[in-house]
């Protein structure tokens, strides 16, 4: 991205507007939503001039996907290759990005009544074939970006539906909670992406919590690697163990919390702790995980989580939301408390309630 473009794209820090959208009056809210939309739409110099026209004319409540081909280069988004309703491409990655973002849109829309990443019909943009042998997929604040993998460790990232759900959820989190991508708030950002990424997969496969594999990135490794997936929500730390790339470093309990400066303070490491708690809750409640556990987490992300929320606070928030949704002292609320206890986090005590205070 050029320097000029960067300056324009990040002129409006999402967190500031997020707070206004939550707490401001109606007029402030409308302005903040527009600013969020503007920054999210600005992804190419040519588009900037059209931004306001786009905002004015785009109907909301419909799925709009756009796939670009970065053609192994560094420039984003790249060449436009497939828009909403366009026929299939003969390029597998393009079709996977299109289908995967569609399934993610459908999950959020049918389960939570949400209209895209911003709940205002934001177009879902994805670029495939980014760089050469690129072993990553990411959300850059405006769009999803997928590498092809190097073929030695990783296969292409579009292949895995929960990877796509994970990346899109980073967009949802950006708009709803603005969780800072560092340390515990960053690990919670990762956690919400793993939760809803897994739920997108379970929903697409119509699986009960009990039937699901609770793996993130299952099948992303080449056969060279000793491992089934990148992460396991059911058993954090067990997804892979390989002589070349090492062992899955995720803890499953607060006593094993990893203090590190790498990976933005271990955001993909310590997310194992809340991931395990969510798994425990989903299993305890039974049925489809998105119906109750997913709903509690979704409402928590929308109504409670703040940019600097810590693990203990997040746990208390889910407990409070479960009480609101299902009743104080309900079986659901008790299950939330029990699930967090499994990973060493106490909720429903005066102490935890106080820790979560200051933002009602």
């Amino acid at each position, binding site marked *: 991205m050029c320097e000029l473009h*960067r300056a324009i794209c*990040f002129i409006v*820090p999402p967190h500031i507007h997020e707070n206004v959208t939550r707490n401001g009056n109606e007029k402030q809210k409308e302005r903040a939503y527009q600013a969020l939309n503007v920054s999210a739409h600005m992804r190419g110099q040519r588009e900037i001039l059209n931004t306001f026209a786009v905002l004015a004319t785009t109907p909301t409540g419909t799925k709009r996907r756009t796939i670009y081909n970065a053609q192994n280069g*560094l420039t984003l988004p790249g060449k436009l290759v497939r828009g909403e309703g366009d026929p299939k491409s003969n390029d597998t990655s393009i079709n996977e990005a299109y289908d995967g973002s569609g399934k993610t849109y459908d999950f959020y829309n049918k389960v939570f009544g949400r209209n895209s990443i911003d709940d205002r019909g934001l177009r879902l943009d994805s670029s495939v074939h980014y*760089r*050469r*042998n*690129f*072993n*990553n*997929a*990411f*959300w*850059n*604040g405006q769009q999803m970006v997928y590498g092809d993998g*190097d073929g*030695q*460790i*990783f296969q292409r*990232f579009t292949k895995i539906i929960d*990877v796509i759900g*994970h*990346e899109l959820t*980073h967009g949802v*989190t*950006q708009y709803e909670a603005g969780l800072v*991508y*560092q340390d515990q708030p*960053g690990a919670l*950002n*990762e956690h919400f*992406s793993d939760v809803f990424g897994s739920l997108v997969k379970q929903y697409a496969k119509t699986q009960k919590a009990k039937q699901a594999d609770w793996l993130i*990135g299952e099948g*992303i490794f080449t056969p060279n690697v000793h491992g089934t997936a*990148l992460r396991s929500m059911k058993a954090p730390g067990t997804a892979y163990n390989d002589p*070349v*790339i*090492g062992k899955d*470093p995720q803890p499953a309990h607060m006593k094993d919390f990893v203090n590190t400066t*790498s*990976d*933005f303070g271990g*955001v*993909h*490491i310590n997310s194992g702790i809340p991931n395990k708690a969510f798994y425990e809750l989903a299993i305890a409640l039974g049925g489809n995980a998105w119906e109750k556990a997913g709903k509690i987490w979704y409402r928590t992300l929308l109504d409670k989580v703040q940019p600097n929320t810590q693990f203990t606070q997040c746990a208390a928030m889910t407990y409070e939301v479960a009480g609101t949704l299902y009743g104080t002292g309900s079986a659901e609320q008790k299950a939330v408390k029990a699930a967090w206890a499994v990973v060493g986090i106490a909720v429903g005590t005066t102490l935890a309630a106080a820790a979560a205070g200051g933002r009602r």
Partner: protein
Amino acid sequence: MRISFERTGGFGNVPLRAEIDTEQLPPDRKQELERLIEQARPFDQPRQSATATPDDYQYEVKIEDSSGAKTIRTTDSAAKDELKLLFDGLGEEALRKLRS
């Protein structure tokens, strides 16, 4: 030239760490890395932006030659294109080393 390379983060957060001595490399790969370094001017970077983006890579790279040693810490998204190409080249070399 001796290079200590660390890449963490990314969706998979599979850390990649290796010590690369360009003198030990075949001439073509040594030349390629030196070209990438010259092009990227890694120590001539503006300060990294404060905001990390989700699933970004995080790099810590130390480069040591006869004139001394310097370390650069940055995210992938904050790096200019020439630096991204250097990171890709170093990552490839690091992975080759790990697998050998």
